[in-house]
């Protein structure tokens, strides 16, 4: 593959976007000039439908990455605004500043008090600059932990919405302990004494996602992705060529379906044909139903059992090989360190 060649999926996307623009232009002309454009419109609509079917019937992992990053995809504030009432945002980590890339709030879900946390990606450049593209600094993660401590104190469940390219890779973020903030959250979420439900709605970017994604139940939208490294980053390391991201997206097994197979995600929530942004209401309904069902079930589990289950759930993750029974026996009984290194 040569450098900067648009992938076939991206190419189909562009064709569709161009067509949609053309269709919109025709319709506008029809409205403004009261002329019929049906003759011109018909073939275009047909071609657009054909493209959509081509794209969305069986989207490739790379195409799913594009869908997960789609600028019109429902964002945290859309989910919270639609699914919750009585929302009261909490600000600041009490240590350094308020991080707008991460939202923490008290809210009601189906009338019940909850604590909501989530990556606060924007929908346009202005919003994204204000919210750092949903890439938190350590203070964002510490604000989230502070909110989770509140949840623990008042016995409210936590709902966490995940949608980030990753933790912000900046010098100040490093100086203030990005790694420590993420590690602390992961550890504390593994033993937080209230139910935790996670919804991965867009991009699940590595440690920056996991820092608010440890849960009793992890839900994932059908066209969200969750990965240890971005496809671009993976391709750059593996092949010294970021333009091979499409191949990396396949190799990384980052789709909701892959992650369910790997035991990392508990349930995949279906999205409308073409992605969540094509019918946000259907997406909200699917999330509302699943959240309601799981929160209801989790409320009935005694906390010690819930914590034990949560521990074991993460304890089991991964694939390992142990030596055959006989040699495993000897490896379990202690053996001294082999001679000189």
């Amino acid at each position, binding site marked *: 593959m040569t450098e900067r060649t648009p992938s076939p999926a991206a190419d189909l996307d562009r064709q569709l976007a161009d067509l949609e623009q053309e269709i919109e232009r025709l319709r506008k002309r029809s409205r403004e000039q009261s002329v019929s454009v049906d003759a011109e419109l018909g073939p275009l609509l047909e071609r657009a439908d054909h493209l959509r079917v081509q794209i969305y019937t069986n989207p490739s992992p790379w195409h799913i990455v594009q869908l997960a990053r789609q600028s019109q995809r429902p964002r945290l504030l859309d989910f919270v605004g639609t699914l919750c009432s009585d929302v009261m945002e909490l600000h600041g980590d009490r240590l350094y500043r308020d991080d707008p890339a991460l939202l923490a709030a008290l809210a009601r879900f189906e009338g019940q008090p909850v604590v909501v946390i989530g990556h606060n990606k924007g929908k346009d450049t202005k919003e994204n600059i204000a919210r750092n593209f949903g890439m938190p600094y350590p203070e964002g993660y510490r604000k989230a932990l502070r909110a989770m401590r509140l949840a623990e104190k008042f016995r409210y469940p936590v709902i966490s919405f995940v949608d980030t390219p990753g933790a912000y890779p900046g010098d100040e973020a490093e100086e203030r302990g990005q790694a420590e903030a993420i*590690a602390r959250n992961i550890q504390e979420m593994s033993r937080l004494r209230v139910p935790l439900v996670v919804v991965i709605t867009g991009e699940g970017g590595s440690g920056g996602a996991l820092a608010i994604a440890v849960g009793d139940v992890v839900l994932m939208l059908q066209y969200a992705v969750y*990965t240890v490294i971005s496809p671009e980053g993976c391709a750059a390391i593996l092949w010294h060529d970021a333009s091979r991201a499409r191949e990396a997206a396949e*190799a990384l097994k980052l789709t909701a379906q892959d992650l369910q197979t790997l035991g*990392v995600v508990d349930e995949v929530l279906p999205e409308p044909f073409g992605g969540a942004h094509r019918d946000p209401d259907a997406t909200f309904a699917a999330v509302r139903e699943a959240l309601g069902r799981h929160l209801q079930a989790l409320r009935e589990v005694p906390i010690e059992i819930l914590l034990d289950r949560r521990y074991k759930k993460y*304890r089991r*993750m991964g694939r390992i090989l*142990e030596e055959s029974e006989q040699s495993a026996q000897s490896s379990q009984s202690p053996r001294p360190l082999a001679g000189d290194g």
Partner: protein
Amino acid sequence: MPAGIWAKCPRCRNLIYRKELERNLKVCPKCAYHHRLTAVERLEITLDENSFREYDAGLTSTDPLGFENYPAKLSEARAKTDQAEAVITGEGTIDGSQTIIGALDFHFMGGSMGSAVGEKVARAAERSYEQRLPLVIFSASGGARMQEGVLSLMQLAKTSAAIGRIHDAGLPYLSVMCDPTTGGVTASFAFLGDVILAEPGALIGFAGRRVIEQTIRRKLPDDFQTAEFCLQKGLIDMVVPRTEMRSALARLLAFVGAPRVLPAAIEPAPAAQP
């Protein structure tokens, strides 16, 4: 380092008599550069002689994603290091203080954490919990192992949860960061120590220097993300030269109440619970 009587220091470029370098625990006698150690070397200079009993030596990663070239890379790393995985775990004594111990090996695929490394670290933490012993982990890692995808990411959760149990039980966990300790290992067990120590000059950080420079469009100072930088920023407790690390750990373990074993009483410990 190639075999031979002389070794070249990668920092000051001086030729050093190899025996002298070894005697000095692979710290350059001219410029104090701390050469990277293998996990075996690390355990040897840290633990009391013949006190080490290894756990889970036969535990390895598989290729869960069918990732390009991963099995070949694993075999290559095994051949190169003569180790099954990028961490060695077990139990031993440090100046008579009993402890569970782990050492990551940067020479094995950059010390990267896949399922096996995560599993071994988690098991070490669980043994610490079950046997009411302290835990000491030497980290040296580039982060999560890309070839195991999100399963590697999940090892951050697995190890951090296991460390959480040690803290709940009131047991001490000492984390030692060696060169380099970055990425997913910093964002999990390495930064969760009750006391965090580091070797001089060790690279310690979450994001890589190049990525940060591209993001902020500025050059970073040379000392950025060094152990000394982290100490100054309040991220770690102490920077300890290698020649003093063993005694620093012994002193900490004695202080926080590790069970003492008199030299004469050191004998093979009972078999660990699987």
